[in-house]
């Protein structure tokens, strides 16, 4: 197996994975969706809410905020030594209090410790007019995507076969129909020959194949080579999310291996 990064930003990654099969890439994708832990607001204690939105709506909006997650410092509440009571090892607390004209942003949530300050601080929660008030306290805990979407750290993880476009230059009469039809504009004529500009942009839609009267072009996917892309919501960086997912997958196989050894 060979992995190359095509793009790596704090919140987005595009990888090229070679010499593998769809089931392997898919298992990584599914771990990202459902097993990768992250921090999210679970309990909201509302002291005063005179805003036009209901308590429940505000609590729901708070739950969707991505909180910076340091997986080394936190444990799941049900596995914690405090036995589910909520201690600094498993719970992060924030308070919010705002009164009078203005928008309440996610950044108005004040953490107990500065290291937990919310990075995505411009998410509007509710708008206040004069005399309106919102005072509340929240507890955030670790969770997994399979329990609720608010604990899903990775958005839109997806893979596609690496495109292979074969052009038969003997059959091609340079009619330019495929160039016009291609939705991603990846075909061009260079040195009087039809060629591909950026093959990684190809979505394997085969419009060029359908439109070509001479059957000079064939598009297929390489079944051992993939382009894998995903985004994170900012609670983990793309690199952290990927490494953590891989180690979760590894642990799962180790567990399976141990169980299989016991058989017989």
């Amino acid at each position, binding site marked *: 197996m060979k992995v190359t990064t095509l793009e790596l930003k704090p919140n987005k990654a595009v990888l090229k994975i070679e010499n593998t099969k769809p089931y392997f890439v898919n298992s990584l994708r599914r771990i990202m969706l459902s097993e990768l832990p992250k921090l999210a607001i679970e309990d909201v204690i509302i002291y005063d809410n005179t805003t036009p939105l209901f308590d429940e709506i505000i609590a729901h909006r708070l739950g969707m905020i991505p909180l910076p997650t340091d997986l080394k410092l936190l444990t799941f509440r049900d596995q914690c030594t405090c036995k589910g009571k909520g201690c600094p090892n498993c719970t992060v607390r924030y308070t919010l209090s705002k009164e009078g004209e203005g928008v309440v942003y996610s950044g108005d949530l004040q953490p107990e410790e500065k290291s937990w300050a919310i990075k995505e601080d411009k998410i509007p929660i509710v708008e206040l007019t004069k005399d309106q008030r919102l005072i509340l306290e929240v507890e955030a805990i670790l969770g997994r995507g399979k329990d609720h979407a608010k604990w899903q750290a990775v958005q839109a993880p997806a893979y596609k076969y690496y495109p292979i476009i074969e052009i038969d230059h003997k059959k091609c009469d340079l009619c330019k129909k495929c160039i016009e039809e291609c939705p991603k504009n990846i075909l061009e004529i260079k040195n009087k020959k039809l060629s591909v500009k950026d093959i990684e942009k190809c979505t394997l839609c085969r419009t060029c194949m359908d439109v070509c009267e001479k059957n000079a072009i064939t598009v297929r996917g390489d079944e051992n080579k993939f382009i894998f892309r995903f985004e994170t*919501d900012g609670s983990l960086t793309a690199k952290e999310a990927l490494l953590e997912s891989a180690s979760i997958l590894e642990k799962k196989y180790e567990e399976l291996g141990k169980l299989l050894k016991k058989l017989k």
Partner: protein
Amino acid sequence: MEEELERKDRNHIGEKENMIIPVRCFTCGKVIGPLYEEYKKRYEEYKKAVEAGEKPKETPKQILDDLGLERYCCRRMIISHVDLLREAAPYE
């Protein structure tokens, strides 16, 4: 004029909904909450330029691209949103 305003504030089935921009995209979960205000500001500029008969600095398509909204699920969250919270605001 008043009737027109009323209609503009309703969605295609005539319901008033989405008081405030959702935090995340309904489909993929991307955080889109913070982008709405900026989109609106830049869209107003575009609208002003078009109404004055000038060439706008950027089109709504370019604004959405620049905000990093690649997928159409996130783009529709922004362009189809009707902000109504201010109208409901006096009622607690």
